[in-house]
């Protein structure tokens, strides 16, 4: 009989091996899924795991998708490590897009290059504002940050919808609900001409480094960590739980807002009702698959953007529904949580167990 036993110490091998095992199991189950749908499993899996890495263009596309996931995943790591469950990164992302667009729409072809910085700043402030509402509700009225942040996503969607159909609608846009295209001076500079990759990716990588530095090397990072792991110990040490709540909310709001501005002033170039593409929810998976560690989040954001691109390819090339992306994401998180059991526990084969329990009954 197989039995789960507590390990004396958490296994390091399992800690790093568990995401790989989870990935393998996810690929295996999805391969079965392809076979059931009557497609060649290897061909299907290749769309998810090989095609997105196959060419320069594909890699550029990957970086465009991974950038918002990485930024938001980093913010959520800070938040979740502090035990603050902000699940409304999507809403903060939308407000970031609105804030960035608000600045970008004021740009003229003659504006200086500083304007891009203002666009990003506007987006960051938008995200901070939206997350501040969450912190305020929790701090003042002890409202669950999970519910408040989630519901604010829908408010943000309505606000976006109002803006693109009302005050910010492009007068020359044939009544389509979208803003005017931003002036070139307000657009995020590209890394190479002709490539879709823009400066957002190096930006996000720098942010990951800063997150790592702050969480490992500063007292502020330490205070957040303690507050999340053991609230009683934080109280004992005198670390303020209110400060932790506000920091966690505002930092994750800022990262999501920045991601929103990068998206709207980068690949999109205008504000449309299609800004919310679900990145904010995928980022939750990114944060957990990345072990709430900056380096892990870099890897998981790339992985989940591969799923994203793979889903689109499966739709166009194999005629499969795009919902496959969500299935991949959901399975990965589900299997990962199961595999994590092996960090603290191990499976043991107990030959004598069956006999003893029979004897006792």
């Amino acid at each position, binding site marked *: 009989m197989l039995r789960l036993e507590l390990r004396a110490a958490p296994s390091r091998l399992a800690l790093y091996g568990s995401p790989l095992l989870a990935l393998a199991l996810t690929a295996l189950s999805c391969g079965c899924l392809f076979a059931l749908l009557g497609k060649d499993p290897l061909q299907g899996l290749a769309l998810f795991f090989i095609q997105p890495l196959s060419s320069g263009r594909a890699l550029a596309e990957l970086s465009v998708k991974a950038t918002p996931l990485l930024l938001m995943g980093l913010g959520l790591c800070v938040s979740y490590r502090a035990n603050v469950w902000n699940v409304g990164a999507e809403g903060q992302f939308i407000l970031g897009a609105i804030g960035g667009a608000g600045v970008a729409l004021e740009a003229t072809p003659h504006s200086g290059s500083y304007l891009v910085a203002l666009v990003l700043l506007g987006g960051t402030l938008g995200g901070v504002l939206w997350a501040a509402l969450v912190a305020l509700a929790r701090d003042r009225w002890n409202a669950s940050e999970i519910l408040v942040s989630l519901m604010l996503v829908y408010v943000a969607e309505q606000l976006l919808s109002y803006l693109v159909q009302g005050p910010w609608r492009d007068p020359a846009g044939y009544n389509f609900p979208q803003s005017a295209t931003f002036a070139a001076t307000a657009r995020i500079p590209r890394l190479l001409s002709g490539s879709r990759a823009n400066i957002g990716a190096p930006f996000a990588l720098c942010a990951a480094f800063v997150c790592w530095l702050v969480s490992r090397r500063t007292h502020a990072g*330490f205070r957040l960590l*303690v507050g999340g792991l053991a609230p009683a*110990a934080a*109280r004992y*040490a*005198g670390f303020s739980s209110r400060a932790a709540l506000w920091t966690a909310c505002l930092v994750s709001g800022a990262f999501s807002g920045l991601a929103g501005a990068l998206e709207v002033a980068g690949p999109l170039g205008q504000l449309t009702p299609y800004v919310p593409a679900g990145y904010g929810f995928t980022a939750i998976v990114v944060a957990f698959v990345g072990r709430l560690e900056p380096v892990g989040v870099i890897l998981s954001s790339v992985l989940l953007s591969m799923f994203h691109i793979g889903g689109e390819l499966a739709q166009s090339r194999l005629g499969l529904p795009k919902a496959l992306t969500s299935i991949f994401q959901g399975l990965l998180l589900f299997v990962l949580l199961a595999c994590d059991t092996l960090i603290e526990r191990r499976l043991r084969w107990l030959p004598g167990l069956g006999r003893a329990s029979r004897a006792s009954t």
Partner: protein
Amino acid sequence: MFRLELQGITKRYPGVTANDGVNLQLRPGEIRAVLGENGAGKSTLMKVIYGAVQPDAGELRWNGTALELGSPRAARALGIAMVFQHFALFESLSVAQNVWLGLERGPTLAETSQRMTALGAEYGLPLEPARPVHTLSVGERQRVEILRALLATPQLLILDEPTSVLAPSAIPALFETLRRLARGGCAILYVSHKLDEVRALCESCTVLRAGRVTGSVDPRQESNASLSRLMIGVEPAPLSRREQPPGEVCLEVEALSRTPLEPFGVALRDVSLRVQRGELLGIAGVSGNGQRELLALLSGEDARSGPGQVRLFGHDLAGASPARRRELGLGFAPEERLGRATVPSLSLAQNTLLTRREPIRRGGWLDLGALRQLCARLLSTYAVRAQGPDAPARSLSGGNLQKFVLGRELDATPQLLIVSQPTWGVDVGASAQIRRQLLALRDAGSAVLVASEDLDELFEISDALVVMAGGRVSPRLPLREASVDQIGEWLSGLWPRAAASAAAAAGTAAAAAGTTGAPHA
């Protein structure tokens, strides 16, 4: 024929052999002590007997037949019951509901209540089945656990440090119950590290050290010294202290009343006390009488004290954060070492940072090298047995973790150190070291406030005592005027109320004149 016979029980965990060829024999009706320091392997051995842990080698014979226990459920079916040190009761349910929930099949709630009342009368464990558990004292909760075990009419009862939660006055009653049970043929394994109790109750004793049996003796024929030699290999040196008059007033609490922060907490009622430099004041009392709430108000974890109610060296502490209090010279070691005094999953070096600010550089940057050095110094100075500064806090045994926590606080040379249950669950050797360190701090002129359930300990180290009961604090009693009987009476809240304020005033006036508070020899 033996009720239980263990032969060569061996259990290895990675890095440590918890049990190494342990033999033990137990006859029906025998009360046998299992004596040993923390980490000696007592708990593992009990878990093996209770079926919660499978041994790597060795044989377990029950009434003469060899068997392998797959689970606690199988053990219970054989008639093995265990009363754990930490209770598993639902606060909001009644006594009978709690017991009924744990039963595997059969009786209705009403039948359970009846059987409990009958059993309670038989064994001298009076309990009202309908009372909600949160209204029970710790001693009464233990009775619930024992009754729960007795309902299964066990042939073997295991008790894990049962007196650690009891008032001294409640201990004889527990012993009487256990003797009655033994006369009925039930074998009892009594796990403890308290030598006096073992000698008073048990007729045989298995001593464990580092996983091995170091002796199987009749404790009534042994002295405390010979037992502790078996247990730790050496006898602890006697404590010494310097005679000194107490100095200036360090901590003053005036008429402090507070409703508890937590549900089922204890309200503090009109608490006044003061601690002077160079003295060690003990707070006696069974846990759950407001000590936790009072100490949280002193440490700043609960900053709701009113203006002027708590003063440290004349500074009003109303609204002051724990960090601010630490700057003023306060050190605090709470009774929960894991989860409050330390973060279980973080390294010892990181845990050092909870209360120490030396490795923090300008701008909040951490000097990780300095932090590791500080932590390594604490580990060596305070003889903490750990793998090093990187070992997670939860990998330490209770005693070693307490040495680390106290070392961290002592090393900051606090002007006032507040310690709750300094040696709770700590083995004899480490306890002696901890008491010596507390006295050394007092000798060096700091004030020390110790809340403890262990009266022997307080009589050993205090200069004066107060008693806490029901959220109130008794007048202070210089140690040489205190007797165990009187403190025992006060533990139930029966101190002379009318004279309380007068006595307190007289006591402090005399203390200021330097005539009382002279250490007890």
